[in-house]
């Protein structure tokens, strides 16, 4: 495919004091694909997300979105362009009901521009659109769940709420920071089709994960980070065959055993 990449990261560096979190990281992302990112704890995965989304100012390097450098922009401008993220530690607005959590992103300039809600929703108001989005992402509409305070929801719903907060902006890219972590097997199993559906809707995803089995199901290309550097990039089976990846990340020589642990 000769299409230009939607997101291109070049030579990204970030130090925290004397600790190198990211060193000369580069990769590119084509529209509509799902890129998996794996790596041991402390390998710079979340720092990478923070640098791309503007929450942390990078020391060097460029982040090109549709060919435009966005690496010096503040977080709200980057979200405004259509790059959204979920937080590893979920950050709902605890005291607000789940559907009102979506009123806040729906108030953003991007949602006002891109959302069809002004006159588009059945009543054209944000509460209604919020409930529509929640239903879309797997909240049962006729149950009390969408109306409960977000702080009382189980983590499976909170992860979906994080995704819904991104979707309210009608994003081009969603960066999921460990969206499967802390979930039960059945919650993960029900979230995987949701992720696949997002891709089929044309949304590009970056998924930072420790749950390899599920990650390998949804993605065809994986980036492996180690000590802030790109160790390798490739298809899941190439990865499993690679000696360095198994050494660095899994600490195991047997790929079958790795999959069992995943």
């Amino acid at each position, binding site marked *: 495919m000769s299409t230009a990449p939607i997101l291109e990261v070049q030579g990204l560096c970030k130090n925290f004091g004397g600790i190198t979190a990211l060193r000369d990281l580069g990769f590119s992302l084509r529209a509509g694909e799902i890129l998996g990112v794996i790596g041991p704890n402390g390998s710079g995965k979340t720092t990478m997300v923070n640098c791309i989304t503007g929450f942390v100012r990078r020391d060097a390097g460029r982040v090109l979105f549709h060919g435009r450098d966005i690496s010096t922009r503040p977080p709200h401008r980057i*979200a405004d362009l259509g790059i959204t993220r979920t*937080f590893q530690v979920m950050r709902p*607005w605890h005291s*607000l009901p789940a559907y009102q959590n979506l009123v806040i992103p729906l108030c*953003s300039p991007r949602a006002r521009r891109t959302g069809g809600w002004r006159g588009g929703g059945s009543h054209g108001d944000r509460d209604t659109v919020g*409930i529509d989005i929640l239903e879309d992402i797997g909240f049962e509409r006729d149950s009390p769940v969408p109306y409960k305070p977000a702080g009382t929801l189980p983590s499976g719903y909170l992860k979906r709420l994080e995704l819904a907060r991104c979707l309210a902006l009608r994003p081009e890219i969603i960066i999921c920071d460990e969206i499967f972590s802390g979930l039960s097997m059945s919650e993960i199993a029900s979230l995987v089709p949701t992720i696949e559906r997002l891709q089929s809707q044309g949304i590009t995803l970056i998924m930072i994960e420790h749950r390899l089995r599920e990650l390998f199901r949804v993605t065809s290309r994986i980036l492996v980070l180690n000590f802030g550097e790109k160790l390798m990039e490739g298809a899941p089976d190439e990865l499993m065959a690679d000696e360095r990846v198994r050494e660095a990340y899994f600490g195991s020589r047997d790929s079958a055993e790795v999959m069992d642990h995943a």
Partner: protein
Amino acid sequence: MAAEQHRKQRIDRGIKVRSDGIYALMSGRELAYLVLPRSTLIVGLLLLPLLLPDLYWQRVITITCLYALLAISFDFLAHHVGLVSLGGAFYVGVGGYLAALGNTALGLPVWATIPLATAGGGIVCTLLLLPCLPLRGVYFAIVTLMYPLFMARLIEAFDIVGGTDGIIGIDGFPNHWVEQYVLITMVLLLLFGLRRLAATDFGLVLRGIKDNDQAVRASGIQVIRYKAAAVFIAAAMGCLAGACLVHIYMWSGISQFALDFSILPIAATVIGGAGTLVGAVLGCLILVPLSELLRDFGSLRIVFYALLLVAFIIFRSEGIFNYARRKYEQFERWIPI
């Protein structure tokens, strides 16, 4: 292949779900239950000047209203936006001096200086506080505490706008009825107006900023713009109080930057019930007249005052309004375990 199956699903409209509460409109008894507490406050405040015996206590009511404006402004910023402001004195001072200058230097009448000082003071305060809005935590409180000291010393040292003598010869309100009812109306309008504002989408974003500003940022919203709007609203309320104050005393001086205007509203909010806005008004209705009553005790006044505050914080930290609302809305009973 079989034809696609369809199931008919009936779903409540969003608007219906939200208006569940107003089924009370069907019944006079429930309507009265809802209206009673609100109308007690409104009617009570409006009748207060008529019921009080002399000019002295009527003046106390006026001052109570000034503090109520400051307390509502503090409660709004602290509990609906997450900015702890010690800037009551700053707002009162800026609003007061703007009104005083407008009246004496430009010769504007009272009905023009008050709105001008409110809006202009709000803008001035917001601009001066703008640099510390990106910060979270205690910084905003420190800066708002510093500005009134800064302003007072500036006026003192450079002997500008009247210096330590202050500005005299400011017009008063036409009579004390106008004075009282202007303030009581303002307190009621701003109280219910802010409660309404807090329930709008704009208010939800502000609450979102208080709970978790990173997620608001990640939602593509410029947090500072919303914070600045909220600070403008709160500062303008404080400036309104200051502008009224100089017209009541017909004098403007650096004592308007006194810390009383910052501290008493906070105490009133704690006593009345934090985050409720109404609680701030109730707190002022108790604290300000109480401090007048305690005047007979001379310097022991502050001791009684402090003891009462400490007792409230220990035994009723939720505040009067939250306590009363719980009693009004729920009944309690003992059940065996």
